[in-house]
């Protein structure tokens, strides 16, 4: 992982920290309170940008299900411009194991996510200049599946006023492009060509 990527993650984390204070009234009941996301997510790589940050809404027993909305940054590299991305992710974590008094291990996390690039020459439906169904796919939106693991570190009671727990996770994801490319070519392409790695951190308020 490159140094500048860490710098981005650190910056985004610092920017998001003030949000923690906003969640002090989390025990208050009510509709608006129930739709406030309780988790801030920061992720490095993973097919959704170099660094992405956003919020997750988790629900179900032990937060088994989670829906997150992430905003990502894709550096320019050799293209004409840097790009912004938006990701909608649906996660399922069927079980968790209490490793230690304050550490939870979630051995399986899986789900799907859709990612869109905000700027640049991309399209969702083909421009009119093309004959109907000329390419048959959208360049702007990528559908992905992922599988991964997660550790939750529950913070001692004295810190609990803001952050309940910190999580670290990694996920292996693959996009529709990669799946279409891999399966007719399993002799030349390797499984590592199919999957891409992303790591991230969550702060649960």
């Amino acid at each position, binding site marked *: 992982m490159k140094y500048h990527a860490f710098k981005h993650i650190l910056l985004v984390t610092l920017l998001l920290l003030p949000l923690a204070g906003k969640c002090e009234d989390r025990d208050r009941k009510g509709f608006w309170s129930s739709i406030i996301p309780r988790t801030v997510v920061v992720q490095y790589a993973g097919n959704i940008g170099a660094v992405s940050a956003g919020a997750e809404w988790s629900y179900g027993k032990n937060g088994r299900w989670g829906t997150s909305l992430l905003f990502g940054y894709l550096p320019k590299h050799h293209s004409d411009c840097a790009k912004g991305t938006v990701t909608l992710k649906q996660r399922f974590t069927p079980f968790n194991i209490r490793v230690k008094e304050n550490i939870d291990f979630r051995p399986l996390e899986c789900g799907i996510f859709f990612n869109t690039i905000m700027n640049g020459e991309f399209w969702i439906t083909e421009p009119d200049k093309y004959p109907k169904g000329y390419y048959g796919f959208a360049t702007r939106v990528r559908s992905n599946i992922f599988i991964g693991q997660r550790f939750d570190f529950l913070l001692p009671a004295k810190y609990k006023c803001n952050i309940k727990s910190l999580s670290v996770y990694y996920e*292996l994801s693959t996009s529709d492009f990669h799946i279409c*490319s891999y399966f007719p*070519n399993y002799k030349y392409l390797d499984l590592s060509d199919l999957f891409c790695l992303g790591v991230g951190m969550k702060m649960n308020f």
Partner: protein
Amino acid sequence: MKNALLYILLSALLLCSCDMFSYHPYDCKIDGPVHLTDKNIGRIESQTYGDTLRFAVISDTQRWYDDLNDCVKAINKEKGISFVINCGDLSDFGATDEFIWQRDIMQRLKYPFICLIGNHDMLGTGEETYRHIFGNLNFSFTAGKNLFVCLNTNALEEEHMDDVPDFGFMQSTIYNCPDSIERTFIAVHAQPGSEQFNNDAQYRFHDLIQKFPGIQCCLSGHGHKMEDKALFGDSIRYIMCPNIHKREYLLFTVTKEGFSYEVSRF
């Protein structure tokens, strides 16, 4: 449980070392060899002399990595080839990995290779990736007394169709053509008449290619089939190379008298 933690940590480290972090399919981070058009032209021009020449043509290699890999092995077994031309569509989606995989297979050729840009290569950030890995969309090179002019004809992909093909580039190539050139081959991705071509300008294109010294034929891909036609009813043939999945490549032989080709299966 300590073992479990250690195991996870080690597997994470292992994964990191595999360089599997990827930002996005359209992230233009490109490692490995780049600017390959110029590098390969340098090799061709320094290694090729005189009239006679053998070269191979392949096309539309997108998402057929196994077939392309087999084709490279087959071409490597051929003797006396000066270079290989890939008539474009290296990628299907314009995604960066696709170009890198194709480049890495083409790099296994023991002969120099030239890759043209196809219409699929212009999707998303494809054109930017193509420019960085390969180079300009229009270029020409000499192989002994033979001139090869490679042109972008994917007009449908451009905002202004009239800019493609680049007639200014063609005219300046004719103007600057060395006197030693006796034959010219044109290579494009989409030939006149295809939906990609700027068909309002197809006669102008056909007229202009005849101004090159000793015009032989126009090579193309895009149609995914073998075709050899005099599209404009004169002596200039437009030869379309099949896609790589047909497991065929064209092997051209050029002599003082002209050119001939055979379809090789692998």
